[in-house]
């Protein structure tokens, strides 16, 4: 589903952040992406969601070589992914509800067809009472949950979550992890970038460990 072959990346003229990375993410799989701060977890996720192009090597997403892809295909690929950004990236002028509904709205879907689903999901992540407020008045943890809900709402084939539990207490972190696992059971391939060892210890999943610009895989 995602395939890296000898991928290298540098930002501008800087040093290589990632060097010779090769791995594969299977459909319906579940894995953590871990490594110390600054190791390149976010960078790697950005390569998968095609916000960055590799300086070397080949990135294949959903069977498509990403080096020659047009804008229409890019949009189609992104619609199959759900992304939780480390810095949330909520739109500040839209309510929580509207932010979560955004991926459906941009597909031109009628609001009546998804309203109930969005409300259900918001309730599940504990934002039932916060759905009509704007992100600036949400707490860090609430923003995080809104960002997660936005990534889940389309039931993507691939979920990329960057530190999705970085701002919540351990019990909420467990609840959110369960949400990801459940999504995984529905058939979504899940990649969770985290350096929270306690979180990873809760389930025995595959770990992709970044360190020293290289990737080690613990199956």
């Amino acid at each position, binding site marked *: 589903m995602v395939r890296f072959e000898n991928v290298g990346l540098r930002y501008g003229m800087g040093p290589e952040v990632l060097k010779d990375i090769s791995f594969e993410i299977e459909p319906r799989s579940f894995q953590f992406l871990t490594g110390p701060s600054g190791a390149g977890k976010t960078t790697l996720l950005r390569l998968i969601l095609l916000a960055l192009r590799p300086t070397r090597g080949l990135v294949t997403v959903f069977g498509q070589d990403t080096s020659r892809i047009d804008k229409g295909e890019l949009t189609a690929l*992104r619609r199959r992914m759900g992304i939780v950004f480390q810095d949330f990236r909520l739109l500040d002028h839209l309510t929580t509800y509207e932010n979560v509904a955004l991926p459906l709205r941009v597909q031109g879907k009628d609001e009546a067809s998804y309203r109930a689903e969005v409300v259900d999901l918001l309730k599940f992540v504990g934002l039932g*009472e916060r759905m009509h407020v704007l992100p600036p008045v949400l707490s860090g943890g609430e923003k995080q949950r809104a960002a997660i809900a936005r990534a889940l709402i389309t039931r993507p084939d691939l979920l990329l979550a960057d530190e999705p539990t970085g701002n919540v207490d351990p019990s909420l972190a467990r609840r959110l992890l*369960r949400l990801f696992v459940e999504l995984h059971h529905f058939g979504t391939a899940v990649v969770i970038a985290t350096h929270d060892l306690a979180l990873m210890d809760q389930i025995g999943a595959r770990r992709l460990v970044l360190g020293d610009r290289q990737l080690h895989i613990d199956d």
Partner: protein
Amino acid sequence: MTVDAPQAPPFDAAAESQARMRPGRPLVPSGTIAGRALVVVIAILTFLAALTASGAQLVANASAEWRSSIAREVTIQVRPQARTDVEAAVARAATLARSARGVESVRVFSKGESERLLEPWLGSGLDLVELPVPRLIVVKLTGEAASADLATLKEALRRDVAGASLDDHRLWVERLATMAGGVILVGLVVLALVIAAAALAIGFATRGALAGAKDIVEVLHFVGADDIFIAREFQLRFLRLGLKGGLIGGGAAALFLALAGWLAASLRASPGGNEVEALFGTFQIGWSGYGAIGAVVALVAAVTALVSRETVRRQLRSMA
């Protein structure tokens, strides 16, 4: 997604959303300072364009009015000659005119009437008996001057009636037509310039808004929006701004013209009003004038939509 919560979520106690979601809240934040500035700029430009258009319209109407009324008339002037009877000469000229082809009616101004015509220039109370006041014969034609056989009449007058001359106003008509045409051309050029300025303003504003909304555009791309969708969001916003500015400017222009018309009407009621009326017609812009304003507003809206769409599309193509 319908998630069967394995346990009741502890957070959301009641929170049933009876509140209807506001559908279609703009994805691009509106009501920014730049947006308001754009509305003001477009309003001013539309105001100027609408005034220009309705002014040109006014001139076109007035000149058409002058021309058709002037062109359907010719005047015969009979200057009193020494040792001849003016009355007899006038009668002969009138007879000639009546028998000419294409003449509808002939009206001879009596001596008294001719003198009265001079009153505004010479003042009343002046005894004109001793002055050789020229006599006028107004000849109304059935059609335009060109269709009547004026050359024959002119020739006959020259031959048979001493001191008679025919004035077909052609020179005046031509000058008026040229002047009106010039005014209208200038109006059109000004209109085109104003529209071009509006297009530039909208282009810059759109580009600025897109650059300012870079983060939003990026997020929209990540959640699966295509360029057409994003472009539509921006266009919609700019169309709204353009229409708002256009309507404000057009409304102000209509108000201005209505006021001017009212002023002209009250002026006409006062002494000297006749001259104003003679110059500008009744200064009624009427429906055609308001129609011109409406057309300008529509044009501004169309230009706004087109320019913002093209700008957004071009800009988005260069963004990932």
